[in-house]
């Protein structure tokens, strides 16, 4: 084998790596985005400095995004058109419960958080029951519950947000903190990263990569019928995916209430809602919409990419132009991710 053919083969292997493995591709994209904005910053084209402090502060928006992205990953992995349009509405409705429990009824914080998470899980269980046991297509069942939860969240407190004294003080949960020991060398990190995001990421990773449940979920998502003949509890496994998604949405509700310092009835559904960005993150992170394929690291990297891209875009434009260009970026990235998935499936066979 001559040196040129070897070189050629290495090159195609690299192309193949980037096309078939989402994680290296995302890592490279993150580096490109960050370097691009650093260069722009150095050239003075941005309205404010884009540095590590800014990137770290921007991570606060990664908390709900990554958590809901993981929630979507679980349901999409479960296969048979799995998707959850209701996560945003669960965030709204569970957030209202948290508002009542902590802000009005004076429950202790830990109890209120557990109750909110449990309530989220219950709302997710309704989805799971409809999809897994009754056989509703996931898109329909979660569209219906999206409407129902959204409506209930608005009606339950007469459209009024709850922002009593204890709720307002919760804002301290979303402040940035200096880490012990290494803290003085790196920027302050938003507290929500440690209290909510990291535990969720670790828990989902352990669930997917280190438990029998995770293996079952991949199995039913890959081939529903084969999994049933292999004796797996298909319905139960799929049902639990929706319950976990609801549970995570319940936790996001707490984060959102703290971030706004108010339990807003439309927190998860206003504007574009929270479900669409979450699905986008999951797909961008390499979760196959057909089920059975997807990894936690992909979703986390996809979140970082979008968060740092959005943060940079915000500085590159004056006024609200930036938020419009964020839509452009998100749409373009999603369309290209989808086309790339189609291309790799055709070129390298896929599953």
């Amino acid at each position: 084998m001559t040196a040129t053919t070897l070189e050629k083969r290495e090159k195609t292997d690299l192309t193949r790596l980037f096309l078939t493995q989402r994680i290296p591709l995302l890592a490279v994209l993150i580096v490109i985005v960050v370097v691009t904005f650093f260069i722009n910053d150095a050239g003075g084209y941005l309205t404010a400095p884009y540095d590590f402090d800014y990137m770290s502060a921007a991570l606060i928006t990664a908390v709900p995004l990554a958590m809901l992205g993981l929630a979507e990953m679980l349901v999409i992995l479960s296969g048979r058109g799995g998707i959850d349009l209701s996560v945003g509405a669960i965030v709204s409705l569970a957030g209202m419960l948290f508002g009542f429990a902590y802000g009005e009824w004076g429950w202790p914080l830990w109890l209120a958080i557990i109750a909110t998470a449990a309530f989220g899980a219950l709302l997710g269980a309704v989805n799971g029951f409809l999809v897994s046991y009754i056989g509703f297509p996931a898109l329909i069942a979660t569209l219906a519950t999206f409407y129902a939860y959204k409506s209930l969240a608005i009606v339950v407190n007469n459209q009024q947000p709850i922002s009593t004294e204890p709720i307002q003080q919760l804002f301290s949960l979303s402040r940035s903190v200096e880490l012990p020991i290494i803290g003085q060398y790196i920027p302050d990190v938003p507290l929500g990263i440690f209290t909510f995001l990291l535990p969720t990421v670790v828990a989902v990773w352990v669930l997917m990569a280190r438990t029998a449940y995770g293996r079952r979920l991949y199995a039913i998502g890959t081939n529903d019928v084969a999994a049933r003949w292999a004796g797996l509890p298909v319905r139960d496994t799929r049902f639990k995916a929706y319950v976990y998604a609801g549970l995570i949405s319940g936790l996001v509700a707490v984060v959102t209430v703290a971030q706004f310092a108010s339990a807003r009835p439309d927190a998860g559904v206003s504007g574009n809602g929270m479900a669409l960005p979450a699905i986008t993150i999951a797909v961008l992170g390499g979760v196959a919409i057909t089920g059975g394929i997807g990894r936690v690291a992909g979703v986390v990297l996809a979140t970082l990419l979008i968060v740092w891209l959005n943060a940079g875009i915000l500085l590159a434009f004056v006024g609200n132009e930036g938020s419009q260009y964020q839509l452009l970026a998100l749409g373009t990235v999603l369309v290209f991710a989808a086309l790339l998935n189609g291309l790799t499936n055709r070129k390298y066979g896929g599953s």
Partner: protein
Amino acid sequence: MTITATPPAKIKNLPSPVTGQEIVLIGVIAVLWAALAVSTPAFLTAGSLQPLLVATAPVALVGVGMTIVIITGGIDVSVGAAIMVCSVITAKTLVGSDVNLAVAVLISVLAGGALGLINGFLIAYGRVHAIIITFGTANLFMFLGLQIFGSGTVNGIPGTLGFFGRGEAGRTLGIPHAFLITALITAAVWWYLRHTAGGRHFFAIGGDAQAARLAGVRVQRRVLLAYLTTGVLVGLASCFVIAQGTSTLDQSVGSGKELAVIAAVVIGGTSIMGGRGSVLGTFLGALLVQTVASGVTQLGWRSQLSDLFVGIFIIVAVGADLLRARARRSR
């Protein structure tokens, strides 16, 4: 099914013109109207029914296109953003230059058609999942719409589109034009889907795209056509939306409409899996959703409560369909 079927036998092979779901929907709407007529005397008056019919039109019209898309096994979640783009283009044209009704409709329809073409092209030839692509294009369309909006609202829209509006100019013999046009288009598409080879191809693609392709259906062209049709209808529906509003158009126009349209389609009995459905059902589904919204306000309840009923209707309508499918299988 035999291939050598003679024309009369072919007609016999067609399913019944009105599905069970549609009969039930007609019944439910009739019961609701009767109940509302009894509880609120103002309901069965022209002043209450005409706005209801006008408000039904855009959702039902986009629903006709969405039904075709869903029959082919796809979905289009970008229609809400597409409505925004078409509305703002048309509104700006109306404000900027004094065009007449026909030109305004043409501009809106062309804009919608172009957006539909983008979706259709990506989905048919990019061979990627429709929901993902349309999530992406929804963001792109929203960007486009907001850019055209510039900042804030479009003000001082002239009454050129009053032909489709709520006012006196928007009615003939008491029937709103927007509703009439929607009903005519629904009927035409219903006939096309049911009685022409081209129409049946959409069902074939939704049933099994691979088999349809081997049977000689030009799958990609048909899929492209489905999204193009949806885009064109979005364009027309945007004219209805502008006409129903005030002389000001704000940036929230079309927001959330995609889910309302999908709700109407699935309440109408169209299977989200593709291969089965009817535009008549969608029309009735849109009418039902609007009746509930109108009824909730007239009863003096909180208007947001109507969403809860929409959710319940989706569960009941699709649940009934699932039960029927189970019965069909076990027979």
